[in-house]
């Protein structure tokens, strides 16, 4: 019915929009336009004179000045990250009557970027023309001289001073310090208070401590003439420099650790056993943060990211390796605590034991004969720990491993820290959907199978045994300094958890670890020092379970990893060290123990040189900066 009505011409009037309503709309629109015209009249005719005057005086601009970024010291006040002046070549389009000509002339003196004209084309969309376009970053003095002397040929081109982040050469502590770079659009969307072109910490300490290091930007109000040239400064807000950081790192020790890893892949971590302070944390291969400070090119970035050796990876906190026999330290403590063995319990090692339809080998084919706990640790007897593992069961092993800080990240204050894996039946069910087999417990008992840990975690294990059972959270920042160099905040020891293990148990473990280095049959004799009693534990972790063949006869990627963890002096521990060498092709005793020995040697040499109160003395010295 309605359909008919709508189509029929006879009822046309009824189906149309009410014309009065359209008329009303017309009147409303006309009145509104009249109001807008009257407002224009008011602004342009009545107030026009005044507003024209204001616009002519409208010659004030805000120029931002970036803050000076805080610097970073080692624990003794050695400067690890500094700012240095840098000189950039800038083009102010407003001042260049013919941009093409200027650039052509300039290219005789300055190697400019390829896509310069694109860059300038982009400029006119986003940025005002008085704002400079960066033509070349951080140029050498020859270029500065050339630009200054040929100023007449290249109008609009200026040299602007800025600062660059300056890191020590050879990628010193690169994985800890990280680097800064220009803020990305994504970071910009998340970080309020930044602008395009600002620097922001991208990695390591530079990233995690960004808000402390950055400081507060300032600005200048400057007067410009009608052409946009700067006439004078009307007012200024000073930028506030960022706060500086003092790290717990001992630069000399760090340097030594890095040099010991030269040419290979691996990590070394040294900790103060009573505070969790990281004295050194080296990871190789590495990258050069200066490359980033300069501005990394896309091809450089690609080669870094696609490098099969992953130089950007911080192996000390991101490398998850089977701990191998170093795990026996935890097994020994668990066995004594659970009472499955006493110090006098002896097992006979004939070179392996049958279990299920498998034969589990000891690393020593001929067997160790009868061994007690202390001997089993010193000689790293696998058969002894197979027995212990069977008696403990996987749940107890996992429980004790977690008490020592394994199985979860320690929260050491640098991004991307990983936690390794401490497996148990529930973990396997959730992860692999399969039940736990008793034979797997035997693998775990000697630190193989699903168990993985980072070098940092194993250093914490050594430190925890050394200090009597407290897991301190490892940390790298010791204090924050204000811009006058006065301490603002201290970061002392933080107890992550107690192991809740009888001190006597740990004493027995320590004795075993002393024998590892000092007994005639010990596996870690290459870590022995003359003046200081060292305790340690070797480890050799298989990359592929059951690989036959030995040492350098194997293809590199199948060679075993070498581990050594240690603390010293064994009678009054101060420092704990963990060393992991990837695919070393030799056991922990042969490859990693001598490395740790050199780290300890260096540490005690520094301590002797500095005297007993070295830390305090150095602190005073550094406060005088």
């Amino acid at each position, binding site marked *: 019915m309605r359909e008919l009505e709508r189509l029929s011409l006879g009822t046309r009037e009824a189906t*149309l929009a009410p014309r009065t309503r359209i008329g009303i709309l017309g009147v409303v629109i006309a009145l509104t336009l009249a109001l807008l015209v009257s407002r224009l009249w008011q602004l342009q005719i009545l107030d026009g004179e005044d*507003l024209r005057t204001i616009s002519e005086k409208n010659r004030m601009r805000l120029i931002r000045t970036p803050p000076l970024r805080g610097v970073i010291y080692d624990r003794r006040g050695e400067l690890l990250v500094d700012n240095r002046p840098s000189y950039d070549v800038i083009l102010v389009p407003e001042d260049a009557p013919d941009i093409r000509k200027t650039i052509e002339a300039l290219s005789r003196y300055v190697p400019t970027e390829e896509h310069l004209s694109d860059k300038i084309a982009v400029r006119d969309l986003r940025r005002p023309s008085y704002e400079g376009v960066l033509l070349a970053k951080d140029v050498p003095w020859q270029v500065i001289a050339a630009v200054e002397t040929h100023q007449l040929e290249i109008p609009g081109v200026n040299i602007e001073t800025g600062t660059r982040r300056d890191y020590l050469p050879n990628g010193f502590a690169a994985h800890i310090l990280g680097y800064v770079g220009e803020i990305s659009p994504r970071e910009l969307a998340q970080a309020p208070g930044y602008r395009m072109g600002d620097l922001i910490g991208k990695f390591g300490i530079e990233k995690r401590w960004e808000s402390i290091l950055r400081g507060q930007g300032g600005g200048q109000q400057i007067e410009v003439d009608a052409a946009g040239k700067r006439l004078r400064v009307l007012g200024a807000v000073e930028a506030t420099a960022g706060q500086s950081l003092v790290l717990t790192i001992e630069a000399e020790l760090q340097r030594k650790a890095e040099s010991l890893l030269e040419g290979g892949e691996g990590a070394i971590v040294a900790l103060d056993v009573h505070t969790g302070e990281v004295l050194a944390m080296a990871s190789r291969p590495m990258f050069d943060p200066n490359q980033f400070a300069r501005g990394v090119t896309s091809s450089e970035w690609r080669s870094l990211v696609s490098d099969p050796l992953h130089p950007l990876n911080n192996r000390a906190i991101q490398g998850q390796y089977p701990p191998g026999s170093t795990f026996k330290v935890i097994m020994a403590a668990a066995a004594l605590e659970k009472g499955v063995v006493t110090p006098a319990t002896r097992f006979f090692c004939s070179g392996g034991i049958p279990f299920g339809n498998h034969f589990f080998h000891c690393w020593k084919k001929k067997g160790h004969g009868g061994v007690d706990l202390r001997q089993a640790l010193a000689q790293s007897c696998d058969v002894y720990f197979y027995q212990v593992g069977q008696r403990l069961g996987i749940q107890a092993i996992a429980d004790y491993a977690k008490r020592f800080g394994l199985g979860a990240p320690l929260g050491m204050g640098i991004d991307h820290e990983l936690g390794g894996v401490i497996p148990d039946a529930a973990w396997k069910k959730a992860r692999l959907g399969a039940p736990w087999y008793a034979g797997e417990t035997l693998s775990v008992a000697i630190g193989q199978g699903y168990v993985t840990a980072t070098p940092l975690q194993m250093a914490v294990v050594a430190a925890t045994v050394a200090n009597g059972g407290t897991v301190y959270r490892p940390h790298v920042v010791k204090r924050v300094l204000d811009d006058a160099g006065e301490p603002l905040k201290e970061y002392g020891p933080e107890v992550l958890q107690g192991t809740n293990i009888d001190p006597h148990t740990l004493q027995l473990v320590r004795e075993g670890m002393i024998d590892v280095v000092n007994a005639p049959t010990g596996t870690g004799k290459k870590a022995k020092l003359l003046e200081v009693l060292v305790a340690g534990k070797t480890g050799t972790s298989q990359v592929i379970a059951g690989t036959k063949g030995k040492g350098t006869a194997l293809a590199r990627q199948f060679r075993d990893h070498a581990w050594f963890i240690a603390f010293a002096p064994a009678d009054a521990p101060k420092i704990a060290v963990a060393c992991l060498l990837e695919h070393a092709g030799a056991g922990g005793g042969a490859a990693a123990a001598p490395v740790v020995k050199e780290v300890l040697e260096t540490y005690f040499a520094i301590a002797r040189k500095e005297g007993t109160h070295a830390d305090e003395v150095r602190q005073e010295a550094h406060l005088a900066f």
Partner: protein
Amino acid sequence: MKFDRRLISHFDWVLFLLILALLGAGILAVYSATYAGHRRFSSLAVRQMSWAAMGVGCLLVAFAVDYRRLERWVYVPYCLSLVLLVLVPLIGSSGGGARRWINLGAFSLQPSEVVKVALLLVLARFYHRHIPPAGYGLRDLLVPAVLAALPAALVLAEPNLGTTVILGLLFLTVTFAAGIRWSALALAVVAGGSVLPLLWHHMKPYQKQRVFSFLDPSQDPLGAGYHMIQSKVTIGSGMVWGKGFLQGTQNRLDFLPEKHTDFVFAVVAEEWGFIGAVALLALYGALLAKLLSIAWQARDRFGACLAVGAASAVFWQLLINLGMNLGVLPVVGVPLPLLSYGGSSLLTMMTCLGLALNVSTRRSLY
């Protein structure tokens, strides 16, 4: 479908030329607003020209197919644009703190613009099909209100207050023209007014700040109030004759932010003065008068509603944009129809006008 010669003989040249004139003014204004001092078209002006060309294409497409055939399909663009709006928070790209765009490779689409056309179409269809003899009461308006509220809520969530307001005004205007009862209108206005405090409560801090700085621009001269002060100075300093094309110092020295988009009118008013600004307003006035006369003369309610819708899309955006340029309304991001730089808003506007052209030309064909 064969081509009907009468489409040419009855073509509404007046409307078409008015649109072209405004497009031309827009290209000049964007060229001037992005002029960088060297004799070269800024890439933005070039892009605006290609937008304009594509806009004419959209206009012709919207014109080509008999609008009465379109009526059956109006829910297709409506549903599509709703889907796009839902996708915005998921895959959209952000700018200035809000996610509003969907990246389509070569260009980015702003679904909140597209939804304007889609809403107009479904509203026109509804008012065409449901005609209570005594005018629309509130209960009759439930369906169109929901049709408008759905996209409006999604756009508000982006957040995009300006477009939300425009969608609401579009709905009100078309409903008013279709014949809402006066009593119902009064009730709706009162109800709408009581929602305002709620809306205020849900506004983002920066949006509230804009309202505050509208009430007292001197409070924050370097922040939100800066736009308003500079815009007023820019317009006023044009005086009667203006400073001349490309001679606007406020513009050239970049005291005016967003000058090629939301504040392009200020650039025109500075360079062409009162004379130029009023001439521009006269063009808009003529366009609006033309659109209303198309509505007046339309042969059916669907066509009339489309023409009223096109008129209200032009009018409200013009009013809000000029209002903020002239410092009489708070700064909300609403483009000046056909003049502001930007693809989505231009193409949408041209599509609306294409529909009006469609209605106008086919009036005498049947």
